[in-house]
Structures are given as C-alpha cells and as structure tokens.
C-alpha cells in the first residue's frame, strides 16, 4: 500500500512538536504584559473630566498646597475632592466668566454636584488610608506622580498589590521629612544643599495630641514604652532642615513599625 505522507511532512511535524510549547509560553507572557499595559492600568492615560482641571497650572503655576483642596488627607483615610465652594473661593474673583468653568458655577448656582471621574480607583475590598501615610512621611508624589506636570490628571502607577507591597516591604526607601510630603521636586540632595526651599506647612510636626486624648491618658494598659505624654508634640524627625538625614533616620524617628503593614488585614477587611 502506498505511503501516507510525503517527505515534506517531517519538517512540519517537527516544527509543530517543538513550536507548541513555545507558543503557549508566549501567550502567557502576552497576557501578563497586557495586564501591565497602560490600557489596563491606566498609567499615563489622562481621564476626561467635566471640568478640564489642570494640576500643572494650580500646583506648578500657582503653587497651591495640595492640602488647600484635599483637606482631609491628613485626618482621614479618604483624600477628598474639593467641594464646589472651594473652587469658587477663587473663581468667584478670577476667571469669573471663563467658559470652561461654567460647570463649576452652575453647580454652585443650582447646588447640583459635579461628577468627577475617579482616577485612582482601588478595588472595593482594598482599604487604603491617606492619613497614616502622610503622617509617616510618604509623599504625595510617591504614589500620584508629578501632578505638577499633569495638565490632565492621570495615574502614575498601576496601584497593583505588587506595587503596594514593594513599598510595604521596604518602607524606609520612600520616606522624607513630613513637612516635605507635598513637595513635588524634593530629594535628599536638595535637602543637603538646603536648596529644598523653606519647609512647607509643618502639618505633622506641629499637630499636637487632640484635646480628648489630653485628659489623663491612662497608665492602665498604655504601654510604658512609647506612651505619648499628653499634649506633647509628635516626635519630630531627627531632621533639622539642614544636614541630610537618611531615610533610615526618619524610619526610626517616625517609629514606623514594619510589623503588621504586610498583614492581609492591613488592607483587606
């Protein structure tokens, strides 16, 4: 009986045999790459907003402190988006009839709220807290990127768990004096040269223990070690605004406890 296959088949057979596993690998790789692509993560992808608000203009141009608008960032888990009235504080004086600001004015007139599109959006099962990060000298720029260079707001990092863990496993790397958290261009060199400009609003350092806590913080149960004396200011960084202090010093000064910050329940509840 005649043969079934012609000589050419062997090459095909071999190629398929060796090619298939490679192909599978490639597919997996592609999927993984896809997940990290900016299409999925949204990194660097400007988001349309009802009002084309420019951080570049307001931060770099006008030098407005982050906390002027995002007031709750130091006290709350949630860094609020400013209320319409906040915008109107200035824009009732300047740009009073700029076309692009009409939605703001309309909101202020009608009391109808502006619907901004979320840029940094964590899954609902992730509980992130701004206040503690800011209090421990993690800068705005560390996660949100150079907003002073963003005409339209875009994500600067994937906000994937992997990304969070990098820092939670080695917190000391991303620390800076707490009065510099809102400084977009800060670095240790500038600090050393004293060219970092005047310290910002010393929010954390000057924030004293709230009144309620003052009333006889009980010895019962409070640890002998590390009890804050009522009314005492927060332990400031060894940093004096002159000599460079490396992150490790801050790490100690801010009493950052690595214990627990990689626990599941630190972010998932």
């Amino acid at each position, binding site marked *: 009986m005649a043969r079934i296959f012609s000589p050419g088949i062997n090459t095909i057979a071999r190629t398929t045999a060796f090619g298939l596993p490679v192909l599978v690998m490639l597919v997996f790789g592609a999927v993984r790459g896809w997940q990290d692509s900016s299409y999925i993560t949204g990194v660097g992808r400007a988001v349309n907003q009802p009002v084309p608000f420019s951080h570049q203009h307001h931060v770099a141009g006008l030098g407005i402190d982050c906390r002027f608008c995002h007031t709750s960032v130091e006290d709350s888990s949630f860094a609020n988006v400013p209320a319409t009235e906040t915008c109107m504080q200035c824009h009732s004086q300047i740009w009073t009839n700029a076309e692009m600001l009409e939605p703001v004015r309309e909101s202020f007139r009608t009391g109808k709220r502006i619907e901004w599109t979320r840029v940094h959006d964590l899954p609902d099962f992730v509980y992130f807290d701004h206040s503690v990060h800011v209090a421990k000298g993690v800068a705005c720029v560390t996660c949100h990127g150079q907003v002073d260079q963003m005409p339209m707001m875009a994500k600067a990092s994937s906000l994937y*768990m992997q990304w969070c*863990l990098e820092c939670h496993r080695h917190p000391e790397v991303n620390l800076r004096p707490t009065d510099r958290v809102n400084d977009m261009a800060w670095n240790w060199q500038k600090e050393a040269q004293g060219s970092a400009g005047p310290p910002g609003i010393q929010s954390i350092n000057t924030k004293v223990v709230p009144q309620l806590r003052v009333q006889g913080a009980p010895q019962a149960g409070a640890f002998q070690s590390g009890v804050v004396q009522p009314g005492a200011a927060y332990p400031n960084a060894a940093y004096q605004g002159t000599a460079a202090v490396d992150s490790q010093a801050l790490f100690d000064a801010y009493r950052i406890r690595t214990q627990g910050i990689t626990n599941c329940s630190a972010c998932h509840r």
Partner: protein
Amino acid sequence: MTQSIHTPDLPLVNPSHDLESVTEKLTGFQLAPTTPKGWFLAVAAAFALLNLLLLSTAMLIYKGVGIWGINVPVAWGFAIVNFVWWIGIGHAGTLISAILLLFRQQWRTSINRFAEAMTLFAVACAGMFPLLHLGRIWKFYYIMPYPNTLGLQFPQFRSPLVWDVFAVTTYATISVLFWYVGLIPDVATLRDRSRNRVARVLYGIMALGWRNSARHWHRYTTATLLLAGLATPLVVSVHTIVSFDFAVSILPGWHTTVFPPYFVAGAVYSGFAMVLTLVIPVRAIFGYHDFITARHLNNMAKIMLATGLIVAYGYVMELFMAWYSAHSYEMDMFFQVRWKGPYAAYYWALILCNIAIPQLLWSAWVRRNPYILWVIAIIINVGMWLERFVIVITSLHRDFLTSSWGMYYPTVWDWATYLGTIGLFFFLLFLFMRLLPMISIFEIRELVAHQSHARTHADPAKTPDSPDNTPSGGHTS
C-alpha cells in the same frame, strides 16, 4: 505466583492464535467500516447522562454550591465523596501497568490497556470535583503558582488541597503519557492496516512515524520500564495525599494515621472492582475470551481479596485506636456516631459490601465464575462509595461542639452531578473502545511468540531466558 503463570492448563492466550490472527482479532472492531447499532445506543445513553452533568454544572455556576445539600457543619458533601471514589477507581490502571510490570506479571498484558484507559477517564471525572466544589470556581487558578499582579502569586503549600492539586495533575499527566506510549506501536499497526484514508492520516500522526525499528524498541522498552518505576511510587503517593485531606485535619474520624495505607489499599480494591465490572461484559461482547481468560479473572479476584482484607484491617485499626487512645471525642465518633448515629445504616452497609460479601472470593469457583464475580465487583464499587460517604459526612456532621451538630441531605443536584460524571466516564470509554485497541496488540504478539517458542522447546520453566526471569524488561513491555 511465578508458578501460576506456568500452570499448563491455563494459558494466557489461546494457543491456537498466531501473530496474524491476534492482530486480525484485536483490530477487528476498531477498523470495521460500519459501527454496530449497539454501540450507538450505548453512547447515546452515556451522552444523555453527560448532558445531565453539563446541566448541573451550569446550574452550579449560576447559583452557587448552595444548590447542593452542604451546610455548616457538613461543608463537604457528594463532591468530595465522589472525588475520592473516582480517584480510587483511577488507581487500578497504573497499578496494573506499573507494579505488575515490575513484578513481571505477564497476565497484566491482556488488561493493562483497558485498565489504563479506565484510569484516565476516572481521573478525569475525579479531577472535576475539586474544581466544581469551589465556592468561586472562576477563581480556581488561585490554587496554582503563577506570576500575576500580586507579583508571584503562590498557593499556601501547607494545605493538603494544594498537595492534591499537584498529586492529581502529576498523576493525570503521567497516566496519559504512559497510556500513549503504550499505544504508539498499536496505533502504527492500525495505521498500516486501515483502509480508510482519513483514519490512516490520523493514526499516522498519532503513531509519530513509528516503524518498529529494533533500536527504537530498545529505548522504548527502557522508557516503559522507567515510567513503571516512576508510576509505582506515584500511584501510592496519590491516594496517600488524598487521605491527607482528612488525616491532616483535627476532626475525630479524619485525624487518623492509618489512613494512607488504608486509602491506597481501598483505591486498588475499588480499582480492580471497576476493571472487573467493565472487563467481564467487554470480554463477553467482543469475544475476547482467548485473551482475557479465567486465569485473569482469578488473579484479579485474588488481588481484590487481598486488598479487601487490608481495608478491613484499616477499619479495625480505626476502632482499635479510638478505643486505645481513650480520647473521648474519638470514642464517641466511632462507637456512638458511626455505630448508632443517624448515618449508622451507611456504616453497616459498607461493612457488608466491603468486608462480609467479598469473603466469597476465598472460593476458587467463585473467582472463576464471571457472573458472580461481576456482581461482587459491583457490590464492592458501591461499598467503596459508601466508605467515602461515611468518612466524609458522618465525621463532619457531629464534631466537637454539640451545639453545632447538624445533618446532611443530598439534593437532586448532588445526584445529578454524580450520575453526570458516570455518564462522562462511559462516554469516553465507549469512544476509546471504538477508536483504539482495547488490548495491547504488540504485547499479545509477544506473548504468542513466547508461547509458541515455549511449545517448540521442552520445558519453558527451565529455559534460562523464559519470560519470568529475564533481566531485560524487553519481553514484558
């Protein structure tokens, strides 16, 4: 046992056969141009059940595992019972092809191919349950290590369930490979015998261009032997690990060190029972009496008897240890809950099926009587299912805190899923029977050759190179 092989009155293959007739006989059904109606009926029946599986699976994914009877405290129900049952059945194939190969049991030749196929399909059914019973099946991949947005995401390697994943996937892979390797020469035969162009191409591709070269045979037999050597500890490890699912926990009735050996024995036990359940009808239908002789049935029955006794020993040890430990929870579990509890009937039924009835196998007459053997085999299959039911459900429904005691009532969906997997099993089995040789042809040829060889020479038992003490595995694979 070597003696029984050479008992002259019981040849492994009807002596009248020669290479040609063997090949003819064993490829007849597969190469037949027309398919018998009976086959279609059988497949239709199996397919109907298979659809039941699809339906219940769809329902499961749509609504959640709540459609089953599970609850707290009985959070594992039929899914796990069936998983252990199927995986147990899936032990015969590899055992026959691997362990018996190492022991040079030539009689395995006639049944190993079929048993291996059965193994694969049983493992396929078993493998489904650990996935199906997940609350969030669409997250199943969390159980495997792979890179993702968590960095590298890993399972929790201390969990027996993860061991299960590795054990079962390894077992499935190795079984498939073993089975396929065994098929290559026979597929080559089909390729060369087939008259159908398409069949020839397909068989041709599957045979990889096998051309029976002596040099190939040499590596081939080595590889088979190595696989056998690997599969033997594997097959033992798989059910050991399955037993860890229970033994590693702290529940009275689960937390038992005798579990690994007793599970393995139970697996072989049920495996052989299932082989017999299937082989006896096949033998009758396809007239394979020449190849699957009374001696095969006899040997399998003996193995069932042996493993059955090990299982019985396991039951006794459970009770003994419970009593000997003087651990109140253990004592309650065995002497109160299992003996007198709401599910006591299941316990006593399993004792009847797995221990009492199989004692009939002591009689050689029973062992050679296909009909009785078949019934006993089925009873054992049922018994082994009951065993798993008792282990899983009765241990769970009454554990430590009396306040959380509960009951478990299987729902229609529990049953549908179970029957569905049986459908899947037979569907695959029937396809296999139609398309591939049910009995390893080249090994039978070898057997025929040796028998004729033996006939020509005086007394095979004395010849130095008779099959049972040759150094090279070449003969038996």
